[in-house]
């Protein structure tokens, strides 16, 4: 028996440089940034003041008041992105058996903004003032749960929490569930925690850029790399069994062809970090050689040591300057668990158009010896793309997508 192929049939994007797939792709191919000074709260007293905020999102235009009362910003974005992804896939969930559809998303922090509001009520007004919805609105699994309830999806569902790597780990888990027999899984991730509570938590991690110039703040693989700018948003993807998708005449963006995940050895062990192995596992899983890969979407930490580790892993597999590498997330900031699903969506759009979007504002450090696509996007015949994501604490994930 052959393993069923799993394909992407719908995209729903909420990104700092564009709300909706069309707006996002138009901005991304043009190199338009979504990074600017924080507006969701006054950042004056914090050392980091820039973020990638999703523009022009009015939840009340899309969601009923019953949901507004019980959802964090990230959940509202995720619910609307899911609506768009299902529409894009031509799927009406109400017309399908409820146990044939599941939801597997990733999360890095949960609903921080909602949680902050309730904690403020707790300490300033007392426990009587805390919303009953705090019981789940902050929770990591809440996006999966709310998507499941809104769309009547009762098949295998869950959430993966492994920081930025989780965005790929969730897609891999979705693929597993489809291979085990579920026809459709809503996957990907939307993350958002641009509120004071989320901000101080991220500052404590020590990896935020403190630059106040939007075009100098997030410079992965640049000698001036000095941390990242956080962003909010991500992408929701509709994954289906290829046969089922073709049978209903769905348009297919591409196949989730391979996946690998590793964990770094203990700090100080002197052993090689796990990213190279994750790439090799993903390529082997997809049944492709390094020479088949047309573009790599980098994790792009913009922390010099982490950039070096990533460049070494890429060069170990592909050879120096051996494959075009890009980081369109330089236009959005790092979206935590939302980053890699957005990169996967971007890779599928890049394959469709034959265009590698650029890494913006970066002057590549020649020491990394990468063929980094900078300044201008690059036209190229693309069939196979590799997406990399690393999570704080040692998570590595790699995913291969292939043209349908």
């Amino acid at each position: 028996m052959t393993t069923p192929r799993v394909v992407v049939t719908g995209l729903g994007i909420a990104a700092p440089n564009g709300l909706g797939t069309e707006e996002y792709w138009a901005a991304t191919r043009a190199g338009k940034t979504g990074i600017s000074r924080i507006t969701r709260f006054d950042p004056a007293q914090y050392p980091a003041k820039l973020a990638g905020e999703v523009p022009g999102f009015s939840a009340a235009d899309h969601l009923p008041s019953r949901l507004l009362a019980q959802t964090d910003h990230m959940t509202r974005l995720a619910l609307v992105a899911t609506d768009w992804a299902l529409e894009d896939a031509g799927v009406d969930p109400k017309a399908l058996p409820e146990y044939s559809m599941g939801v597997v998303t990733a999360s890095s922090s949960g609903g921080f903004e909602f949680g902050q509001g309730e904690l403020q009520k707790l300490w300033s007004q007392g426990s009587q003032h805390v919303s009953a919805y705090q019981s789940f609105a902050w929770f990591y699994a809440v996006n999966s749960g709310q998507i499941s309830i809104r769309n009547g999806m009762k098949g295998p569902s869950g959430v993966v929490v492994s920081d930025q790597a989780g965005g790929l780990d969730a897609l891999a888990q979705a693929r597993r569930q489809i291979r085990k027999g579920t026809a459709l899984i809503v996957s990907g991730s939307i993350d958002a925690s641009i509120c004071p509570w989320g901000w101080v938590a991220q500052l404590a991690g020590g990896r935020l850029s403190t630059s106040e110039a939007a075009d100098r703040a997030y410079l992965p693989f640049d000698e001036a790399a000095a941390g990242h700018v956080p962003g909010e948003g991500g992408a929701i993807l509709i994954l289906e069994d290829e046969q089922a998708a073709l049978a209903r005449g769905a348009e297919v963006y591409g196949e989730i062809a391979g996946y690998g995940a590793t964990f770094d050895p203990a700090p100080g062990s002197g052993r090689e970090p796990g990213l190279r192995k994750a790439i090799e596992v993903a390529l082997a899983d997809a049944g492709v050689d390094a020479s088949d890969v047309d573009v790599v979407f980098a994790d792009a930490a913009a922390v010099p040591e982490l950039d070096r580790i990533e460049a070494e892993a890429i060069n170990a597999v592909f050879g120096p300057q051996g494959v075009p590498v890009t980081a369109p997330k330089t236009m959005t900031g790092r979206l935590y668990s939302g980053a890699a699903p957005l990169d996967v969506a971007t890779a599928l759009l890049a394959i469709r158009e034959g265009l590698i979007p650029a890494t913006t504002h970066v002057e590549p450090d020649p020491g990394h010896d990468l063929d980094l696509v900078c300044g201008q996007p690059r036209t190229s015949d693309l069939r196979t793309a590799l997406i990399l994501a690393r999570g704080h604490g040692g998570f590595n994930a790699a995913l291969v997508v292939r043209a349908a």
Partner: protein
Amino acid sequence: MATEAFTLEDLKRILREGAGADENVDLDGDILDMEFEELGYESLALLETCGRIEREYAITLDDNVISDAKTPRALLDAVTAHLAGAAAPVAA
């Protein structure tokens, strides 16, 4: 605090503030004897609603009010009974 009446209008306002309103339900219709579930409110929405009533009216509802009051009329009766009972001690 003097004894206050707790009316259907008060309940509708608190429901909307705390839990929103289902777009397929007309709260301004004849809802007194409809079940909360039909109105689109699950147990957590009622927990939130009762919490807000308790705060606003400075009363403590019995735990079983949430499970027993299936309709707006039943909840209004339960709150009114508490307000009558609580009036003296709260005023003192």
